[in-house]
């Protein structure tokens, strides 16, 4: 695979070459994937996936359909256990950890096909995201001890605060399943943020959104990064979004990384153009 050249100022001393913003250069990356791979039976879905993401970087993962992008997300969140390779989160190996444990370590995600708790209210969805930050036990809840009231009030205020990122606080009482599509996607992001992650994985956040909604979403992703000081890794087919806000981009095709670099470098990379548009010579 040919690696695109990079500007010297952007060079980072981490094992895997990736574009990490200057402000994160002297820190360990929040996420490092090394030689990551998974086989489903005889099929290698992802192989030799190397990537490092800075602590406040917005990174993109793109590629044609079936390239293995969502599989990478499922590997990072341990929905699948990787066949090969290591994932370091903040320098800590996540080998053998479950989805639940990885979330507690700081990875939160959204899903390509929206997975909300659709029978529950918007507020409850966010409160479920806050689950591990609400400090009272089952017995305290059933007996309605003072701890319950105090923690529930805090959770309620926090939920509304988080919803206000997307101006959704007025929808708090609505049923999550009854929200329009775009609002459901935004609610998923809020729910993921509620778990207080250090890395937010967004799987096609702009899917099904119109251009003005997408523009608003771009602003909000940057705003989230700036307010929460977290890293964001997103899968997206909308190139205006990817090229507009990502600082580093990684291109997957058939489970392999074919290019890494800044948006400019990716746009001019011949391998990427070939993967998206074909070689022009016929197959």
């Amino acid at each position: 695979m040919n690696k695109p050249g990079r500007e010297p100022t952007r060079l980072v001393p981490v094992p895997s070459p990736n574009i990490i913003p200057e402000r994160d250069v002297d820190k360990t990356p929040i996420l490092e994937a090394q030689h990551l791979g998974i086989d489903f039976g005889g099929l290698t879905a992802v192989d030799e996936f190397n990537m490092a993401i800075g602590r406040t970087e917005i990174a993109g993962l793109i590629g044609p359909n079936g390239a293995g992008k969502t599989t990478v997300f499922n590997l990072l969140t341990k929905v699948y256990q990787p066949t090969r390779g290591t994932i370091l989160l903040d320098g800590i190996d996540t080998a053998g950890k479950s989805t639940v444990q990885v979330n507690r370590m700081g990875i939160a995600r959204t899903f390509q096909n929206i997975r909300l708790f659709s029978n529950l209210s918007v507020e409850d969805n966010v409160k479920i995201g806050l689950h591990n930050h609400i400090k009272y036990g089952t017995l305290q809840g059933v007996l309605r001890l003072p701890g319950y009231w105090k923690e529930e009030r805090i959770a309620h205020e926090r939920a509304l605060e988080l919803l206000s990122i997307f101006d959704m606080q007025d929808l708090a009482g609505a049923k999550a399943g009854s929200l329009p599509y775009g609002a459901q996607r935004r609610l998923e992001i809020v729910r993921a943020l509620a778990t207080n992650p250090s890395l937010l994985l967004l799987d096609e956040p702009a899917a099904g959104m119109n251009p003005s909604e997408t523009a608003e979403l771009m602003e909000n992703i940057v705003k989230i990064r700036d307010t929460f000081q977290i890293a964001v890794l997103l899968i997206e087919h909308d190139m205006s979004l990817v090229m507009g806000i990502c600082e580093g981009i990684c291109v997957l095709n058939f489970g392999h990384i074919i290019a890494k670099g800044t948006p400019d470098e990716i746009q001019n990379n011949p391998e990427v153009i070939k993967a998206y548009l074909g070689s022009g010579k016929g197959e």
Partner: protein
Amino acid sequence: MKTLSSGRKRLFRNAITYGIVIAAFVILQILNAGGLLSPSLQGQLVPICAYVTMAIALNLVVGISGELSLGHAGFMSVGAFSGVVVSLSLQQAIPSGPVRLAVAMLVGAVCAGIAGFIVGVPVLRLRGDYLAIVTLAFGEIIKNIINILYVGIDGNGLHFSTQNEAALALGEGGKAILKGPMGVTTNVKLSSFTAGFILVLIALTVVLNLINSRSGRAIMALRDNRIAAESVGIGATKYKLLAFVTSAVLAGAAGALYAMNYSSIAAKKFDFNTSILILVFVVLGGLGNIRGSIIAAALLYVLPEMLRDFYDFRMLIYAIVLILVMLLTNSPFFQDLRGQLQSKLRDRAVAKADAKGGSGHE
């Protein structure tokens, strides 16, 4: 000002549920005191409470947690027989009837809870319908174990046997409590409608408070979408087990209450049909709808008795009623009607709140 906030709405809904239960208790008590209840209905007051509790408990598993249990009568059975054994062995130690009943129900609840834990731990780690299969087997296993179990008491304490009454080798003044397939034939009736009412209130409080707490939200999150729940850091096994064991505990207490209402009780009372009967209450009352479970359990339990005048056609009419309820709850006309009724009630509540000057929230 048009809509109540979600927290208020929930409080209002729960208040109605408590109100219905308390009103039903008061009305039945008054009718009973006035001698207006038929003797058969009078005898059914305690079983109604037991089955209402069972329906609330099973709804926690089936409706709230989204797992299917086909053996809840098994937990009822465990609670019933452990409760009876405790009550009959403590006859001398605790002379007061209500206290002994409370102790028996507590022991029944704990025993059923332990059984629930043992069944739940291996099964709830799996995804899929395994709980239905295992609980189905559990119900049958418990029934068969109690069918061959002999328990007696003498000066030296409890004796157990799986052979026959003689194998208990009871000492002087000893007596057999549980006699295998005959069950318990010398039970002392301790249950009262008031005790049943208190149990229903406790079950209702536990389940409603659980649902509206951190753990309850986790349970419902796992029901709605397990992958998403795990992605926000909610461990599936822990919360599924919590719901299942809580339900088993309540079922055990209900079983003890039920058993203490009869002078003789055998294991065959708590068979597969009983489990299905409770499931019917829950499904017709509405999955996840606690108030619905209570109403369905009370009405459908009394119905066969009310239909006694129809003799042979009794069960036929019962079946037709079940089908009609199912069809009507799904018909758009009745759903509209219910929606209109609800919004009317809500408007009235809002108006009342306004009149009180409670205009604090939007």
